[in-house]
Structure formats: structure tokens, C-alpha cells
């Protein structure tokens, strides 16, 4: 089976957002970047799929040279090959998805894994965009996956429950926490990953469809009110919620 997993290189969850000189992007100095947590789940599922059906897992990231670090991590987990679609320019989701879809098509992917969302811009749209561009089905926010010969049964998380989805293959799956427990790279995996080449390709330019303006920080909250220090404060708290905040 030809398995593709798309991974994004994102600021670590502890990152304190400092707006950069252009007023639009964050200042990357001192920011640690990592493999997007949902994409790590995607990588694990891709590797499990290969264990079941054989074939090859190609991990692909679009971005600049720093993305190689994330590709190495995926190689260390066990992916066979890595491809960097090299474009350090800032693109919108549509432009990114379009280049990723082109790659998947050229490669002839049988199944594509993404994360359910990138934790930088929290878009949660690339999986669906790629699938529609390729004219194939997709299942998002997947917590359970069973792959058969030419169909899949997936369970996706929705508000207040789960949906069981039947889909044909090829398809795009976007991974949600709970789908699996991503493996830690073994020492051998880490050593092997250093030797595996990262293929570089230049994706064709695609016009953006969304213009991103200035970034700002949400207004800081005024200092809250400490109502008390034991059970005797309960009545006052409930009164405030009822009469001042009017939320109960």
C-alpha cells in the first residue's frame, strides 16, 4: 500500500506568543518547534497500516529547512522516506493543501493521513481540502480505524458521541487523540533517520485566497475577585454569579 502522511512543524504548546516585526507572524526567536501533536498520531497510524498491508510510508511536509527536524522525527519513528516541499513563503491553507494534493496525486497514494488540525493556526481544514482537490472521500477527527481491502470503517468524534463512517479508498483520514498511542523513536530508529535522505522538491506557487492582516493579542483580563477561602464563600460566589454575572 502507498501510504502518505502529511506533517506540520509547529511551535511547542508552551510558546508565549510574541508578535514579530511585521506585525503579522509570531517572533520565532526562542520558540521551540515540534511535530504537530495530531500529526504524530497520523504517523503512528500510517506505520500501523504498513504493518498490516505492507508497502511504504512517505512523510511529507511543506515549509522551509527547519521542517526537516520534524521530518527526521517521523523518520525516526519508522517512516520509510521523507519529502520536503520546500517553500519558506507563508501560504494560506488552500495554497498548502493544493501543493500537498499535487504530491499525493503524483505519488499515487492509496491512503493519506493528516492530523485533525495544526496547533498553530488551528484551521482544521487541510485534510478536507486535499480530499476534495483529489476528488476522494475523507473522514475527519478519527478515533478508531479499520482498513479492509477497498473500504474503511472509521469512528469519528462528534459533539456528544461518535459517528461510524464507511468510506471507500483511497481516502484522507485526519487523526484525533485516542486513535493510537504514538511510539517513541527507538535509538536504532534515531540513528537510521540520520542516514535517510530527505528529498527536496519545489512546489508550484499557488495564489492565496485568504489575506492575513495584523495579529493582536487578546485583551488582558482584569484582575478577578477572590471571594473567599473556604465553604463559607459559597453563598457569596453563587450570589455574584446570579446577580452580577447573571450566568446562573
Amino acid at each position, binding site marked *: 500500500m502507498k501510504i502518505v502522511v502529511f506533517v506540520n512543524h509547529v511551535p511547542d504548546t508552551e510558546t508565549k506568543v510574541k508578535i514579530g516585526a511585521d506585525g503579522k507572524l509570531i517572533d520565532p526567536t526562542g520558540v521551540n518547534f515540534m511535530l504537530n501533536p495530531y500529526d504524530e498520531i497520523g504517523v503512528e497510524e500510517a506505520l500501523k497500516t504498513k504493518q498490516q498491508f505492507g508497502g511504504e510510508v512517505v512523510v511529507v511536509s511543506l515549509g522551509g529547512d527547519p521542517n526537516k527536524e520534524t521530518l527526521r522525527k517521523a523518520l525516526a519513528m519508522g517512516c520509510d522516506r521523507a519529502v520536503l516541499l520546500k517553500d519558506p513563503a507563508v501560504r494560506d491553507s488552500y495554497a498548502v493543501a493544493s501543493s500537498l494534493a499535487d504530491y499525493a496525486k503524483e505519488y499515487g497514494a492509496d491512503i493519506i493521513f493528516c492530523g485533525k488540525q495544526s496547533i498553530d493556526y488551528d484551521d482544521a481544514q487541510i485534510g478536507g481540502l486535499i480530499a476534495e*482537490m483529489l476528488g476522494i472521500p475523507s473522514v*475527519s477527527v478519527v478515533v478508531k480505524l479499520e482498513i479492509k481491502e477497498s473500504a474503511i470503517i472509521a469512528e469519528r468524534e462528534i459533539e456528544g*458521541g461518535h459517528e*461510524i463512517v464507511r*468510506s471507500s479508498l483511497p481516502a484522507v483520514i485526519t487523526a484525533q487523540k485516542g486513535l493510537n498511542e504514538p511510539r517513541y523513536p527507538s535509538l536504532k530508529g534515531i540513528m537510521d533517520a540520520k542516514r535517510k535522505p530527505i528529498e527536496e522538491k519545489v512546489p508550484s506557487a499557488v495564489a492565496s485566497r485568504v489575506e492575513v492582516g495584523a495579529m493582536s493579542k487578546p485583551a488582558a483580563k482584569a484582575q478577578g475577585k477572590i471571594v473567599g477561602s473556604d465553604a463559607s464563600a459559597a453563598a457569596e460566589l453563587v450570589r455574584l454569579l446570579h446577580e452580577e454575572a447573571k*450566568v446562573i
Partner: protein
Amino acid sequence: MKILAFAEQRNGQFKKTAFEIVKAAKTVADQLSGEVVAVVIGNNIAAIAGQLGGFGASKVVAVEDARLELYSTTAYSKIIADIAKLESAAIVMLPASEMGKDVAPRVAVKLDGGLAAGCTMLTVEGGTIKATRPVYAGKGLVEVVVTTATKVYTLRPNVFTAGSSNGQMASVENIKIELGDADFSAAVTEVKAASGKKDVAEADIIVSGGRGLKGPENFSMIEDLAGALGAAVGASRAVVDAGWRTHDEQVGQTGKTVSPSLYVAVAISGAVQHLAGMSSSKYIVAINKDKDAPIFSIADYGIVGDAFEVVPAITAEVKKLLGK
């Protein structure tokens, strides 16, 4: 100029977001001298469709088919795009719910439009729609403008207020869309509902518990308070990872993003990844025995004390107030 508003329903009942979307669309349409056409997809839904008039829809298009009883990524996206074309809608608005987030990118590609996802504010300036959306889990906000002729927006649930209906009924137009097997290449076959449980993503009030509760058995205290408030139960990642609670209750950067009117954090320290998921709540209450816990930095009201004493006392007061 028309705005197509996707009104989500499940089991023949509108989700709260359906009204929020129609109302938000109406607010934008009024500034662009446009009108709102709502679209409802499902089975046996014509009866509920008209009520969208009360939130600002001038017409409702209902697409009914037994095969549309449950959601299908491929069929729903085709229908929404087809209706948008039939109505020559320049704008499509959907909820950033699990259904809306799943279908919106596909609709955008079919309409050759750009998509602004997870918007929390829409303003119109000189005929241009500016959408504000949180990035980096709410640590930043960006303003985006969709530059294509057709524009697609998903709006974060619970942020745009629907208000109450003005009582008007909209005219309902039933439209048949030809659907073949290929249009159901991905389709839901079954919905497993978590038995009557309120979901944090939709709840107006959430009571969340953290590791300070010491063990899963002590969540009964959280459930009691949630029960008294009619709230959903949430959890920090620490308790989900420990297996005390299920992942669907997790709030935060790798859990759910919530914007309830009231969020009560009990024995949760307030790590950045937790704040990421709930900092946009309208009111935040923190109960923690450590006065330096970061959760207090974003709380509107706090009690610095032992949850085991404080929470049952609050539950009793709430019951007294609400006469339960």
C-alpha cells in the same frame, strides 16, 4: 447579494449553532444590503425549517432524502455547493462544529472560494468582511479577509449570539438534488451517542475537574455541581491521561475548545495548554487551594480553598437558588 447559512440539525432538531449562524449571517447581510437563505439537509426536516425565519432567514431551502438522515461528507458538501450555485450565493456560512468543520473545506473547493475557519467576529468595513480568528490556541488573534469571489466562513459555536426568535416563519422551498452512490463514498452508518451526556463543546456551563481531585471517585462532586447547574462535565488532560475521565471531556489545546458563558475550574492548575481551550469563556470561576495557581490569572471569581469543602457547599447554594 445572498448569504447561504447552513443550519445544522440532528434527529430533526436544530442545533443551537443553526440559529447562531442564521443570525450572524443576517447581521452581515444587513450591512451589505443582502439577504439570508438558509439550507437544511436531512430526512423529515421540512416541519422545522420555517422557524429559521425568526432569526433572519428570508427563505429556507430544505433538501430531504432518506439517505440524508445521517451525515455524509461527500453528499452534504455536494448539496451545499449546489444550493449555493442555484441561489448565486456569494457567501456561505457554516458552524465550526464537527459537521461544519468537516464539510466546509470541501464546499470551498467546489465553489472555488477561500475559507476563513473558526471565526469569532465578523465586521463589515466599506463593503469588505473582516473576520477575526484566534490562532495559537487563542494566544493571538488575526484579522483575515477572503479574497475570492465566493467566500466561505465557519463560525465558532457559542460565540455569536442568536437571541430569541422574532416569531416570523420563513417560506420553505423543497429542492431535490440528484444523488448517486458515488455521492455517498463517505457516509455515516450509525451514531453512537454518549448516553444523554452533555458535550463540553456545546454546553453553556461547564464544570471541569483536575488532578487535585485525587481520584476518579471524587468526580461525583463535580457531577453533582454540574447536575445542579445543568452543566457539562469537563476535565484537564492530567485526569484524562490518568484514565479517570474520557477524552471527549478534555478541554484544552489537545482537547476541545470551549466558549461557555460560565466555566468552573476545580482543582485545575491552569497550564497554558488548558487555558488555550477555555480562556474565551465569558465568566471563569477557579477553585484551587494554591493561591498562586495560574488559573487565578484569568478567573473572574476565585475561591482559594479546598475543593472537597467548597464544591459541595456551592452545589447546596445553587440548589437553594434554583429551588431544586
